[in-house]
């Protein structure tokens, strides 16, 4: 009898224990979980242009303008309307009645403060988007006046890039730096921080004071989970432990496509994969050697081999999604005989080529293909593996000859892209290639100041042609974002400017 009673008691206890376990899923709040290898490392929008941060800033901070997630057009953001003076030098922005996540009003002072942080702060990660600005002032509590040094065609678009999110001046001054951004910054965007566990996950919750009423459409919290291993991320997605896998390996695409409940999508991006060549030393200081290297790489074949045909071969070193890009331009079409001939003419045969490779399977494959092709035209390629910080150190110092890599442009206007990748007198030594062409430098400044779209198209197409023919970099392919979604998520995608459309997203059970 006593043992029976004991069993019964144990049974009761077991039921008691398991009851909360079975009830909790029903009560649990809904959540959208995104697994990404790109971590959030700071919540201060002016301080970092790394991928994971760009993705987060758009959720936490609204900008003066916003991009319509359907059409990609610019539309009013925190500025509900604006006027541009006839000479294109003065932008007067009128702010709407909006609040920060702590309920305080968003004023012209906050906008001025936020833009100044990007433009003049020494530690600003990308001041060049606002480099044309002469001054930013608040003429009253709701009006911001931006004066330019010269008329800049893409100015409105530059007021929508990831770093110009509006932050609270009062809060930043009260808590100081970096304290204001370490755990729970005051937000102006659709979401605010619920919890940040650096290196693990960032949890966001809807901002109740967000100016777009009715958004975010879902009251779900959002978890940005850091997962470095693609195998792990795919297993988590299949097991339902996350809802989105941000960066699917090309080799995983077919498997995920065939999995029920998963929507495997290729989404347009402003990304271009290129091979950087070091123009500051032999062999690639020699134009013919560079051309030989380019003719030897069949980027159609290579795109097929590496991306299984999911990416599009590139015809110029600039992203194919940029305005004025000429799709019909053939670029350099692979030709081994021509490559050998150019190599012989260059006198660089037998030279050693140090190819440095960052992490990841794509870089490794690319490196092997480059090595094989260049060996065939008489170069001596050597592969060296490095991690990301060492990669930046080596390319920055010019301690390399060639390296496959990728970059993206924040906006579809080509101005920033040209300044980053091709202009030798701009900040980045033409993306650490040390390429410098006087004509391109001149055209860069002309393109910035020219207001007529037709003329701008001509300028940027000329720049692309010069750079392609002189092989500033070897164009490889235009890569889409490969993202896998749970089919229960509606209207979630990542825009070409790397922004999740989370505020439009709903969950269907």
């Amino acid at each position: 009898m006593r043992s029976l009673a004991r069993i019964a008691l144990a049974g009761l206890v077991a039921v008691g224990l398991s009851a909360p376990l079975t009830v909790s899923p029903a009560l649990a709040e809904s959540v959208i979980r995104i697994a990404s290898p790109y971590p959030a490392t700071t919540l201060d929008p002016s301080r970092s242009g790394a991928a994971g941060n760009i993705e987060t800033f758009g959720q936490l901070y609204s900008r003066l303008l916003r991009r319509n997630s359907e059409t990609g057009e610019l539309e009013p953001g925190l500025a509900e309307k604006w006027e541009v003076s006839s000479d294109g030098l003065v932008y007067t922005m009128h702010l709407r009645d909006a609040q920060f996540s702590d309920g305080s009003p968003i004023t012209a002072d906050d906008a001025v403060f936020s833009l100044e942080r990007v433009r003049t702060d020494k530690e600003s990660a990308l001041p060049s988007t606002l480099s044309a600005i002469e001054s930013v002032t608040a003429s009253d509590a709701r009006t911001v006046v931006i004066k330019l040094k010269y008329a800049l065609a893409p100015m409105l678009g530059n007021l929508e890039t990831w770093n110009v999110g509006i932050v609270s001046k009062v809060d930043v001054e009260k808590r100081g730096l970096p304290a204001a951004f370490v755990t729970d910054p005051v937000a102006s965007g659709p979401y605010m921080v619920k919890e940040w566990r650096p290196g693990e996950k960032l949890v966001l919750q809807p901002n109740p004071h967000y100016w777009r009423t009715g958004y975010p459409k879902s009251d779900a919290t959002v978890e940005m989970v850091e997962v470095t291993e693609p195998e792990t991320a795919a297993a988590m997605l299949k097991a339902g432990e996350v809802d989105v896998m941000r960066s699917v390996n090309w080799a995983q695409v077919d498997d995920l496509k065939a999995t029920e409940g998963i929507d495997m999508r290729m989404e347009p991006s402003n990304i271009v994969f290129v091979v950087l060549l070091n123009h500051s030393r032999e062999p690639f200081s020699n134009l013919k050697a560079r051309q030989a290297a380019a003719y030897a790489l069949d980027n159609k074949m290579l795109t097929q081999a590496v991306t299984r045909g999911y990416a599009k071969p590139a015809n110029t070193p600039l992203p194919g999604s940029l305005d004025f890009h000429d799709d019909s331009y053939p670029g350099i079409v692979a030709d081994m005989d021509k490559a050998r001939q150019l190599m012989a003419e260059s006198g660089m045969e037998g030279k050693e080529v140090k190819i440095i490779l960052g992490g990841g399977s794509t870089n490794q494959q690319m490196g092997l293909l480059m090595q094989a092709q260049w060996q065939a035209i008489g170069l001596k390629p050597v592969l060296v593996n490095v991690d990301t910080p060492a990669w930046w150190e080596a390319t920055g110092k010019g301690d390399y000859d060639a390296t496959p890599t990728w970059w993206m442009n924040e906006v579809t206007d080509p101005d920033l892209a040209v300044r980053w990748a091709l202009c030798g007198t701009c900040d980045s030594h033409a993306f650490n290639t040390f390429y410098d062409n006087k004509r391109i430098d001149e055209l860069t400044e002309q393109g910035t100041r020219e207001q007529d779209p037709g003329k701008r198209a001509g300028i940027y197409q000329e720049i692309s042609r010069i750079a392609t023919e002189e092989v500033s970099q070897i164009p490889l392919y235009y890569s889409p974002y490969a993202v896998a979604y749970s089919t229960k998520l509606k209207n979630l995608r990542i825009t070409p400017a790397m922004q999740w459309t989370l505020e439009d997203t709903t969950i269907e059970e």
Partner: protein
Amino acid sequence: MQLVAKRTLQLVFVLVGICVITFLLVHMVPGDPARIIAGDRANAETIEAIRKSFGLNQPLWRQFLTYAGNLLQGDIGESMRYKRPVATLIGQFVWPTLFLTGYVVCLAVPPSVALAIASARKPGGVADQIIRFIGIAGMAIPVFWLGIMMSRFFGVALGWFPVSGYGKTFIQHLHHLFLPALSTAIWMVPVLVQSLRAALIEKAGADFVVAARAQGASEREIFWRTILPNAVLPTLNLFGVIIAFLIGGTIVVEAVYAVPGLGSLMINALLARDYHVVQGLTLMFAVTTVAVTFVVDLLSALIDPRVRL
């Protein structure tokens, strides 16, 4: 008491050595933390401004003095990219790793002892052969591969266990960390079995066993009272090394199962050249290793009076 004094002295030297070497290594590896913080597009002036704000533009010896000075006051520094104290970060990541380590021990020790005894009863017998064969297989399978296969099978296909994370409650920890712990235990059991089996066989032929038998002790008594305690000693030392290794070395298993533990933190910090985090973690691993071996020595002394000499 002497042991404690000796160990404490040893600890001081080990720690000073570790501090100097780690500091030099992390600072001499190419790569700039400022570049990782600011991102790809940042220009040279921005990078320089960030370096300056961290004092990275100062000569190395001055940076070391600052670091050592803070260390003496018990401050192991702040993460350069997260702007949070290293101690806080370690506090965040240490629990999954400790739990995992404990879990692995619980899963690995009982079968190790049982298998070793079964194996050593009749060296060369059928049971011994089978156990040794499986053991070699267990050791030969890479933890990485095994982890992926188990998460695919038990996690994705059967849905019995989560394939990632750590959970919130104790029960959830047990559930979430089962596959990672099992993957690690499968590698660990054969190592322990081999060591314990060898010791058991060796001690079974020792003089004191013959003496015990001559005094008329039963085989059962001889095994439990004489052979096993003597045979455990070398395995205990090995066990200590493995524990210390696990706390710092669950990197692979943590990556495969996305467990937010110290291994993940270390990899992240290394790839970001987050100097203070790397230094703080290395220091912590060093202290743990010294502490674990110290505990093992104490245990050995308890079991075997001769060690005290």
